[in-house]
């Protein structure tokens, strides 16, 4: 579904991604793990088109998209739930969700009902301003907003960041459910053990380079990963 070849991205003169190769097959959960500043968020932003690629190729369903605008990529089926939630604070929960479907010709009520079913607390609070939600609820809103675009590929940036363990389980449980419903997920996490546990495959990013890749379970068992990212 997604193939990334020799992708580089830079902020000014500082190169953040160096020749990243990555592949996501249809129906997979792929985890991207690595420490702070490894370039995970930059990679997702480059995939969404809000950060320009310096060089390299991004193929989505076989077609190059590295020059495509961010809004066109949403229309093609790539939606992102960004790091730090980034909800539209003054707008209501339901308006946030409706805006998630901004690129769709006919925003159907079914998707909204589906999101509310997945995160019932959002339905309860649908008239409330998004900024008055708790951190966990805002995270659900950010994921729900991305789902409203009816994406083929869902990019999730640090969905567990700053959440209580019980909520982390709930959010990652939702990710597994999305996979069962046929949505392909690229999951970025600092919480490497939790992410690799639900992932089909994983990549380890270090200072902008892919240093390891493999099946989720294999990476979990890899001594280098254990030492560097799992604190074992």
């Amino acid at each position, binding site marked *: 579904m997604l193939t990334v070849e020799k992708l580089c991205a830079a902020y000014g003169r500082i190169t953040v991604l160096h020749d990243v190769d990555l592949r996501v097959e249809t129906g997979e959960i792929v985890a991207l793990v690595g420490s702070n500043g490894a370039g995970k968020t930059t990679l997702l932003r480059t995939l*969404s*088109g*809000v950060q320009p690629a310096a060089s390299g190729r991004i193929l989505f369903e076989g077609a190059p998209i590295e020059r495509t*605008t*961010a*809004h066109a990529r*949403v*229309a093609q089926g790539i*939606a*992102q739930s*960004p790091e730090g939630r*980034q*909800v*539209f*604070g*003054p*707008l209501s929960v339901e*308006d*946030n969700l*409706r*805006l*998630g479907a*901004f*690129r769709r010709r006919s925003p159907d009520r079914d998707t909204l009902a589906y999101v509310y079913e997945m995160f019932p607390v959002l339905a309860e609070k649908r008239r409330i301003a998004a900024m008055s939600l708790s951190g966990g609820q805002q995270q659900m809103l950010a994921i729900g*907003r*991305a789902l409203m*675009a009816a994406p083929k590929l869902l990019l999730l940036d640090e969905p567990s960041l700053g959440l209580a363990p019980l909520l982390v389980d709930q959010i990652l449980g939702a990710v597994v459910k999305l996979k069962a419903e046929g949505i392909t997920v690229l999951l970025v996490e600092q919480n490497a053990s939790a992410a690799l546990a639900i992932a089909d495959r994983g990549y380890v990013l270090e200072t902008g380079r892919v240093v390891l890749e493999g099946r989720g379970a294999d990476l979990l068992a890899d001594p280098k990963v254990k030492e560097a990212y799992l604190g074992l």
Partner: protein
Amino acid sequence: MAEFLQLVFSGLTVGAVYALVALGFTLIYNASDVINFAQGDFVMIGGMGTVFLAAAGIALPLAALIAIVGAVLVGLLLHRLAIEPARGASPVALIMITIGASIFIKGVAQIVFDKQFHSLPAFSGDAPIAVGGATILPQSLWVLGVALALFVALFLFLEKTLLGKALLATAANRLAARLVGVNVTIILALAFGVSAAIGAIAGVVVTPITLTRYDVGTLFALKGFAAAMVGGMGNPLGAVVGGLLIGLLEAFGAGYISSTYKDAVAFVVILLVLFFMPRGLFGGRSVERV
């Protein structure tokens, strides 16, 4: 009492125009964090454009429509040629660009139009209507009615349409707006176009009362800016209340103190607001903007 009522009428009339200019500020500020000091020049283009087109023999309604469309084009060009190329610059730099654009527009207006004061005939005659011992001009009712209609239309656009919500969303979080597929360049252009239309419409309806000249935009921009600040920059309701308040205070200042200091009132108000409540009357939610 009659004098008081008379001052209220004239204050509300001019205040409604300040409110419309302040709404233009609000719209662009919300979408881009830019304070567009060329906002007053849209008022001038609306008024002067209508005057000159009407003088060329075009029927008044059509002349007004063409002038408004012209102002919208100027607004879109301002965005495309001056703001968009400087995307990513600091808000202060962008504000300076709008001041430069304002000077440029005035310069061109001197050449395209002229340097004289001009007026338009009142839309529904000049016979004053007596109300409670005071009188109100039919044109004042036009100004108030049009201002109310524009405010309601803008409110419905922002609150009831997805495109309006997208504008609010762009204001709240530009990155997230791009991630849900909002084309923020088009949203900004929309904000400039709509602001220009609002300003130009205000210019058309107020010209029979206040007259117009190539440089009237400066005072409209400053008073409208004061109104937006009083109401709390970024708050549409605040812009309207601020505009009416400035208009009323100005009328009272002129009526009870001296008309020499009429223009000073707005600036005394803005200083007081900045000293004592820098976020304005309705500016509670702008904490994160500091």
